[in-house]
């Protein structure tokens, strides 16, 4: 690890001040010379691997008093960005009214990591692409813009089939983000000029020509909370992986249904493990919405979700697997006792 300055924020303005001044000249957030530190399970990991090299780390944990609240009013859920994954996963109200949120958190990482990791840090976790995480590979456009992509012709079993570009096929690895996608969450961002809100689906950027730019956040901006309309008691997260725990998804689906007399008044599907960014399967949703729950229809919807898939050598299976995961998750949601 390279030496860095550790700054402990006393309040939000000072944190933002420290982050913004240190990095004013630099636009790509992930390359910014000052990085906020929450649980550190992504940031410190990548610093040890020499992938991230901030000159300063601003510890935002002192903001937890105001930024880790979880509240449910008028059926709208507010999750503070510094809430710990384990606390939110264990919250009985969330388990009851937003099971998909509890599931995405519970099925992620390990208990130790969930105890450390924050929700804000979680949505900003970075790809697990092995070539990205090993700096001895020169060719990684995300790390060295313009250097090529080692994964394109390399070992790409875990890589994405949706939303990729010729520049980068890395998978967005997180689980929780899929719940936020499916439920149309809003992100509350606190910056120098106060608070702004954006749709969660506008937070992450597809790799396109510049995979190094991963989000629409600017240096000096912090996620302070997530706002989720609801409730969504009929919602599930299905995560498929090689081992039963402590692993990222090969394919996953966060599904929420508003089902009345077997008719899907609303259907929400977000996909993990298969896409470059948190992924909403809107084409599939459109096929389902207003229709009676029916196997053939669900197969059509699953096909639609992967119509634009672009697999590579080792991840061809993700297309078929992803479709089956959608179908199973929809079945689980439809049959769950609420």
């Amino acid at each position, binding site marked *: *690890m*390279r*030496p860095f300055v550790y700054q402990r924020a006393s309040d939000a303005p000072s944190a933002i001040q420290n982050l913004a001044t240190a990095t004013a000249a630099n636009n790509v957030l992930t390359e910014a010379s000052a990085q906020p530190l929450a649980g550190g399970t992504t940031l410190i990991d990548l610093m040890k691997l*020499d992938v991230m090299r901030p000159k300063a780390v601003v510890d935002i944990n002192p903001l937890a008093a105001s930024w880790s609240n979880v509240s449910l009013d008028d059926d709208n859920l507010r999750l503070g960005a510094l809430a710990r994954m384990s606390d939110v996963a264990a919250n009985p109200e969330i388990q009851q009214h937003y099971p998909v949120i509890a599931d995405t958190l519970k099925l992620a990482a390990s208990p130790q990591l969930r105890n450390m990791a924050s929700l804000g840090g979680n949505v900003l976790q970075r790809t*697990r692409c*092995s*070539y990205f*995480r*090993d*700096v*001895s*590979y020169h060719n990684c456009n995300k790390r060295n813009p313009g250097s090529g992509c*080692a994964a394109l*012709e*390399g*070992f790409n*079993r875990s890589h994405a089939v949706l939303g990729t570009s010729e520049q980068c096929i890395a998978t967005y690895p997180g689980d929780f983000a899929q719940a936020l996608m499916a439920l149309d969450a809003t992100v509350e961002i606190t910056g120098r000029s106060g608070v702004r809100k954006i749709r969660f689906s506008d937070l992450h950027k597809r790799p396109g020509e510049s995979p190094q730019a991963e989000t629409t956040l600017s240096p000096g901006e912090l996620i302070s909370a997530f706002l989720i309309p609801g409730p969504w008691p009929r919602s599930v997260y*299905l995560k*498929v*992986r*090689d*081992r*039963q*725990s*402590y*692993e990222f998804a*090969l394919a996953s689906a966060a599904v929420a249904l508003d089902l009345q007399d077997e008719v899907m008044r609303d259907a929400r599907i977000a996909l993990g493990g298969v896409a470059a960014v948190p992924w909403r399967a809107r084409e599939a949703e459109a096929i389902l919405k207003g229709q009676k729950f029916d196997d053939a229809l669900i197969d059509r919807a699953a096909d639609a979700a992967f119509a634009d898939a672009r697999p590579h050598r080792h991840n*061809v*299976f993700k297309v078929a*697997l992803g479709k*089956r*995961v959608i*179908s*199973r998750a929809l079945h689980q949601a439809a049959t769950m006792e609420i």
Partner: protein
Amino acid sequence: MSITAPEPKANMGQPIPRYDAAAKVTGKAQYAADVPLVNPAYACLVTSSIAKGRIDGFDMTAAKQVRGVIDIVTHENAEQLKEAKLFSNGGYAGTTIQPLKSADVAHTGQIVAVVVAETFEAAQQAAYAMKVNYTAAMPSATFDSAGTTSAPAKGQLAQFKEDPKVGDFAKAFNDAEIKVSAAYETPPQHHNPMELFATSCVWLGDSLTIYEPSQYVYGLKNGVAEQLGIDADKVRVINAYVGGAFGSKGSMTPRTAIIASIARRLGRPVKLVATRAQGFTIATFRAETRHEIQIGARRDGHLTALRHESWEVSSRPDPYAVGGTKTTTRLYACPNIESRVSIVRADRNTPGFMRSPPEVPYMFALESAMDELAVALNMDPVELRRVNDTAKEPISGKPYTSRSLMACYDQGARAFEWEKRSPQPKSMTEGDWLIGYGCATSCYPTQMAPAAARVRLQRDGRVRVEIAGQEIGNGAYTVIGQAAAEKLGVPVEKVSVFIGDSDLPPAPVAGGSNSTASTCSTVIKVCEQVRQKLFEALTSNESLTNEAKGTVGMGQTPSTPSASNDRPLDLERAFDALGVSVVEEYGEWKPEGAPMDSFQAMYKGQVRMVGGSEMKDKIAYAFGAEFVEVRVNKWTHEIRVPRLVGAFAAGHIMNPRTARSQLMGGLIWGMSSALHEATELDERYARYVNDNLADYLVPVNADVSDVDVILVAEQDDHINPAGVKGIGELGNVGTNAAVCNAIFHATGQRLRKLPVRLEKLEI
């Protein structure tokens, strides 16, 4: 799964808790890198990002600017160490590829520089700041890569003596009523012990102390001395505990002499803890293998013809091969057998032992093929093994010293409720899950090697045992303590055991599952010497019968009825008669049939292993039968293993508790080798892609639900004084085949290439 220690059956010792349990669970156990050093410098390795080519030069500007950097060692300025010969060629090393000798790069992750600094952090930072310029050539990564060469193993390495053969395979196969031909493949795997490859070197004058996790402190001591050109008596290797090894710490790696040489040059202790990723390339690994098996059988299941041909990958310079045909050609009765092993050379680091090196890949092939034969015969796979069970190995007709394979099958089948299996594939389901039952044979050669020990008995009944064995998690402290306690008739709490130090009397490598047999046989022998001495002091005025001498305890009541007429040995009086308060004996033991030079070799850190299929007039193996329940999700194709049952017979079981742990770990590891573990290669660069514990999958607790180990009672008086067959490498043999056999039963799909990933299922 029961958590209480198993009750001992016939010919089993007491299930006492581990000697080192408290130290380990309280964090008091000191591993090599935990040993505090005075004023150490910290080393970090820089390893090559190319697999083949040359180093053109280094740009060290940035690295040198890191505050606290003391030295940067490369091939341009390193001390030229003496050649390291392979352990299989009269040396100690696991590879002859010696880094820091020239600009050549022979494999990915080869050490190209060592940065030494005042702190670990500075060393790491400078290591990252090092720029190495290479001229890279196109490497040959593995089987089928352009530029690899293949040649028969026979004649290339001393360990591989023969391609076993008997009868006329071609004719018998041609005439066979039922035939099976199939090809199998196993992937590269890395040991990934929890404890990283650490080395600390401390010089005091011209004496060197090395703290390093090693499965063979005597080998390491002698090997490093040879490379440094110093007297082996000046080198001491210490490791009270080894945090897992699985073969990776059995032979010397290049790092040790390099760190020792840097410590000498700097005149201060140097400490290295290589990273997890570096562990994939600075030590050995289990290489990928390919197999073709042909079996001919009569309709009643009797084998008439068997052919096993295999290919293994090794490095360019070193002919390493595990050659498991020595086991697979001798397992079942069959009059016509042929085999061949070839080595394929690629631009890789040299592979080496990994837990059951030959048996894991080779038995996967044979035991999968046996299952395919059972299907072709429409016969129960357990019955197929019964039909072909044999008391003599078929190649040269030598008798097995003992063989309880079918007892294992019967007890295992009962515990598993094998009879509930409906034979048709795809015939058992529950909800979304297809259920499959599979089984396979497990076996491992019984091996022994010479060792020496020192045993001290005090007048107060306290005992000190010294032997340079290694505690690699195998329970060495515990069983050595038990062996001494039993022989001397003292409570085990009174025995202190000292191992893991090359200043102690030599013991062999903790490998090949020989440790318990060798060290306990030796300790038993030296305890006899102690007893003899005490008895002799008393015989003038005592009238103990010889029989009583053999059974009576020290200060305890005689243990057998035949001895009960005699009085227990009175320790006080024996010591009075001797006129001392301590009796100490040093002794050496070597197994029957060990070569003449065994003891000399032992002191030089070279093992002369005896056993398995390589004894003159007999063959010795431990056996087991493994049963697996697999569940495959119809929709997602996830594969889960809710149940593992293994029944094992391995001669005298010193301690049913530690034995069960070993075998349980083995079963889990075996499942892992079917479903999880594989090192992924990027063939373009001949590099390992998943060189970390997040991506190199091993089972987590959630993957392991019910593991049942059955210890089958067995007595074998033809192997060694302890009556012990090794079990360390028994449990993980055959499990991979049992899992695939169960997957076939669940899905109707035969998977012949490991690891099985869900995308390989086409259901």
